[in-house]
């Protein structure tokens, strides 16, 4: 085996790729060659490190120097200073990675990582996802070997059941139980069954599954093979959205490599078990994350759900018993098989075991991907890991569960996060989106944003979702436009409860949640919009007025000159006035005023 004195890890997640990490990689390659360092220093293109805020990220080992926001020209300095001369480039270090004594902190000691526990993400940012040998070096395919050679299918299912693993796609159904239902269907070569992986991640701002697929694709393949062994299936499908090109490419590479190594295909590990996996691309319809719609789509039909029961475990893909799990669920499976059910069950809360990955976004300092043990409080995630809210603004709410979830206000910050607590709090786990809102967010507008998403993504099959959610959105639009009427809140609540009670699938049944939870927690904001025609956060444009304080206005005329609609009048050195009829509320005047004379209400 080759030995290297240094390893350069360049993040190849989508976030860092977007901010130019591929160019950094190419530059490193070129410079290492120029300096004849290729035999001494290994360059690794990894999956996501999680701290997307600091991207593009480069980590150099053995020192563990965490370089953040690395620009192309910085690469030369890292090579010439750090790699050639052994001097860490301090100015590029991520501020949180430098201790008080100016030494470089170990990755796990950085605030962002300290409270995290990486199980699903354990290989992300650690190995080269396009190299199966690296995966194998980190215990890869050991779990499959153990399952096939030391365990019966019943043992496997028992282990998963005992671990307490619940579906990470949002519903939280016990994974072992799901496998058991499918396993109980007649087994044998004449009975076709399927194992599917839901990688149609679509919640706005969520990218947990993408990161796993990009950073550790073999973990998903291995887990699917284990599920196939457990239930008696020989074929798997990964349904992944086409908007995840890096994930798709790495999956295809991984599948090819696994086949070459005989880890997929006929007689795996010399046993009677054969299993293969195909990739199916989704066109980006959110509803295709719903299990029956996903299967319809794999079958080549319109992506819309079919009624359950019967559940897919009994009648699923092509009418055959099918196990469908989410990417993150699979990412836990191999570790459970290797380390045992008790190891996994030791993490988390009574009814929610293990860890959960969240995509932190919105008004938060450390935007990125975090994995924490179940039971970590919202406060720990937002403040200790996420670094709190930028600009010293006040926290207002955190939205979990994506378009199906709800908003949790300040007094719920100490809620330990698990499936049941979030539902009790009026939200849900969802797939792991976590969007933080501060005092500048209008909660009516937030509800409208999420509902607008589901209205757009409704498949149109059932009446309540197709028409009902649209009507709710129309009412919210009216309220935000200052045309809300007495009775609108009741209309929203009536529509919401009907849609929840009668919609065909989970998308429709949960679509009203963001509205219901904001009405519950922030009813006063709705009422201010409806009855006082006022948006307290100053977001809803039609409810805003920009006003000039005559006492502060010096009559410099700057505002009148930048106003695109000529709404501001006034003589030089005299107080100016905004004509509200002409004002389009663009805010240009306020931005330009040097005397703080313009405010919005």
């Amino acid at each position, binding site marked *: 085996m080759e030995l290297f004195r240094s390893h350069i890890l360049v993040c190849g997640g989508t976030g860092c790729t977007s901010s130019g990490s591929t160019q950094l990689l190419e530059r490193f390659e070129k410079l290492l060659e120029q300096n004849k360092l290729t035999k001494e220093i290994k360059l690794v293109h990894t999956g996501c490190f999680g701290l997307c805020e600091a991207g593009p990220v480069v980590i150099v080992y053995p020192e563990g120097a965490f370089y953040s926001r690395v620009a192309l020209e910085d690469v030369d300095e890292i090579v010439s200073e750090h790699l050639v001369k052994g001097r860490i480039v301090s100015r590029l270090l991520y501020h949180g990675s430098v201790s008080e004594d100016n030494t470089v902190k170990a990755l796990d000691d950085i605030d962002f990582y300290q409270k995290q526990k990486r199980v699903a993400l354990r290989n992300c940012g650690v190995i080269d996802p396009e190299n199966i040998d690296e995966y194998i070096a980190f215990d890869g395919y050991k779990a499959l070997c153990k399952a096939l050679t030391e365990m019966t299918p019943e043992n496997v299912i028992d282990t998963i059941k005992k671990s307490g693993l619940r579906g990470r796609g949002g519903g939280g159904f016990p994974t072992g139980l799901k496998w058991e239902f499918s396993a109980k269907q007649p087994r044998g070569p004449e009975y076709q069954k399927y194992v599917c992986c839901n990688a149609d991640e679509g919640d706005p701002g969520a990218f947990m599954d993408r990161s796993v697929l990009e950073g550790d694709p073999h973990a998903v393949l291995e887990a699917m093979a284990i599920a196939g062994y457990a239930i008696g299936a020989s074929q798997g499908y990964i349904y992944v959205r086409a908007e995840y090109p890096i994930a798709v490419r790495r999956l295809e590479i991984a599948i090819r490599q696994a086949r070459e190594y005989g880890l997929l295909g006929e007689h795996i590990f010399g046993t009677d078990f054969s299993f293969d996996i195909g990739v199916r691309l989704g066109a980006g319809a959110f509803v295709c994350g719903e299990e029956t719609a996903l299967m319809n789509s794999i079958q080549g039909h319109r992506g819309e759900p079919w009624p359950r029961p019967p559940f897919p475990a009994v009648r699923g893909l092509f009418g055959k018993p099918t196990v469908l799990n989410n990417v993150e669920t699979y990412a836990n499976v191999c570790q459970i098989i290797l380390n045992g059910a008790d190891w996994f069950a030791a993490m988390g809360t009574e009814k929610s075991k293990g860890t959960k990955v969240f995509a932190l976004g919105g008004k938060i300092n450390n935007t990125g991907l975090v994995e924490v043990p179940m039971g970590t409080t919202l406060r720990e995630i937002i403040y200790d890991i996420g670094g709190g809210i930028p600009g010293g603004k006040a926290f207002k709410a955190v939205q979990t569960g994506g378009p199906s979830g709800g908003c949790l206000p300040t007094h719920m910050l100490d809620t330990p996060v698990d499936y049941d607590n979030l539902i009790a709090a009026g939200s849900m786990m969802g797939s792991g989106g976590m969007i933080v809102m501060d005092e500048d967010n209008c909660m009516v507008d937030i509800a409208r944003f999420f509902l607008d998403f589901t209205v757009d993504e409704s*498949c149109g*099959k059932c009446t*309540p979702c197709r028409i009902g959610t649209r009507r709710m959105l129309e009412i919210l639009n009216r309220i935000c436009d200052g045309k809300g009427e007495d009775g609108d809140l009741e209309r929203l609540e009536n*529509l919401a409860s*009907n849609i929840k009670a*009668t919609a065909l699938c989970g998308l429709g049944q949960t679509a009203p949640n963001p509205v219901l939870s904001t009405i519950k927690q922030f009813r006063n904001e709705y009422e201010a919009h409806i009855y006082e025609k006022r948006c307290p956060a100053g977001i809803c444009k039609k409810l805003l007025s920009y006003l000039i304080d005559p006492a502060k206005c010096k009559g410099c005329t700057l505002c009148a000159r930048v106003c695109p609609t000529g709404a501001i009048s006034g003589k030089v050195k005299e107080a100016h006035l905004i004509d509200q009829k002409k004002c389009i509320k663009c805010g240009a005047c306020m931005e330009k005023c040097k005397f703080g004379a313009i405010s919005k209400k």
Partner: protein
Amino acid sequence: MNNITLTIDGVKVSVPAGTTVLEAAKGAGIRIPTMCYIKDLNEIGACRLCVVDTGARALQAACVLPAAEGMNVKTNTPAVRDARKMNLELLLSNHDKKCLSCVRSTNCELQSLCREYGVDDENRYAGSMTETHIDDLSPSIVRNNAKCILCRRCTAVCQKVQNVGVIGPVKRGFHTQISCAWGDPLSDTACINCGQCIAVCPTGALTEKDDTDKVFAALADPKKHVVVQPAPAVRAALGEEFGIPMGTSVTGKMATALRRLGFDKVYDTNFAADLTILEEANELVDRVKSGGVLPMITSCSPGWIKFCEHAYPEFLPNLSSCKSPHEMEGAVIKSYYAEKYGIDPKDIVVVSVMPCTAKKFEADRPELGHNGLADVDIVITTRELARMIKLAGIDFANLPEGDFDDMLGESTGAAVIFGVSGGVMEAALRTAYEVITGKKLEKLDFLDVRGMKGVKEATYDLDGLELKVAVASSTGAASKLLDAVKSGEKSYTFIEVMGCPGGCINGGGQPLVSPTEREKNNPLVLRAKAIYDEDAAKPVRKSHESLAVQKLYDEYFEKPNSHKAHEILHTHYTARPKYK
């Protein structure tokens, strides 16, 4: 199979495993409202009007919910009623509510459910409407998506029953609508104009192209000689539009009504049905004897013909070259009849009353005419005739029995059974037997080819000549049959295909019967019975014994398949692409 016991509204019900809650409730005398549901055909749980309370987190759609042991279902709680009502209100909020001008008013499933649930005019959930347009470019079918409630019954019947599949849902969410591929008009697709979509549409979103104005205009024009001919199946269903029980044949009243509407001659397509048998049976005998293309396939059903042209063009040589009966009747009226009575055929307007919307398209076919004149000028459906009778103030139910005009209105029992699947086959067999064997046929009822099965098969021994026949009704059933013929799995001498399931009695132009009503009164059975009863009551039951037809040959065509007969009574077909 195991039985399951559950409780519905306090009533204990025992049903076989696999039964839905909806069906179980029916057994207990509990009606749960449905809209998108058609038993065994469209069980998709989309409209959410059949929701019931099972104690689960959400209400469940009874139409797709398998009954489970010990289940306790409530179908009539305030919450359930409110939910159904709100879903109706939501449907209405995106529905063109011009009931006054809607042809389906008083016969609309949405309207009657709204009434049942006390939906008022308050329009609580008024909002924007899905952008739609009317497609009326087809000669047969008008689609108005502003009235569509997306139950997808039309899609199911088009795809699953007819194997045509030219309509389906496009776009998503609130913008979803039923459309042809690429938003093309129906007339640019492989639509066969069968109108089965209309027959299942709960609202006025799918209707026949109304041609009654054209008929009224012709009747009011003193220069026009207007001749009418109703198809065999019309008499078996027309009465339903006037409150006469399903399965009652109204031939006599229909003749009287047509006369009172002011038609100059009231003839009968049945005459031409007998004529068709003579042409077709002799064509068959000729193909069998001279080694022509076999199996020969009937050509009476215009839906089937267009389907064959699009989907099975390789079978076009197998199609009988006979025009369909009403086209033959029209051709005879504009040739023989016009010559005999000295009327300029240009002044004759032939109106066909058909159980069929595809006949409207057929009448427009350029090849179905003579000397630049179409054989048939206007086709109206049974429903349109009923509307004309109502508008004319004719008290249909109390009309005296009348009769058709001489000769071209005379027919045998073999003609009337054209209206039901297997009828053309049976009529042809009655004649072919006697033509081939020269013996008198004693047993006239060919029971093997009767009944409502999609595909029926029989083998007959005609004095040593083995005749293997098959009968298919619905183009879906025809596809299966033809695939089997194509693969060599099956071989036949003669095949009858009717485009609609059950034949013309269940045509797309017939009085509408909702899927729920069909479960109680099956028009396929009842209307067929009316037809077979009429056949049994006829003094002459073999086409070749029709004196009127014999007279026509004597005076005009000489003999079946003569040169003149070919010129006037036969046609040809064109392969058409599946996609434009």
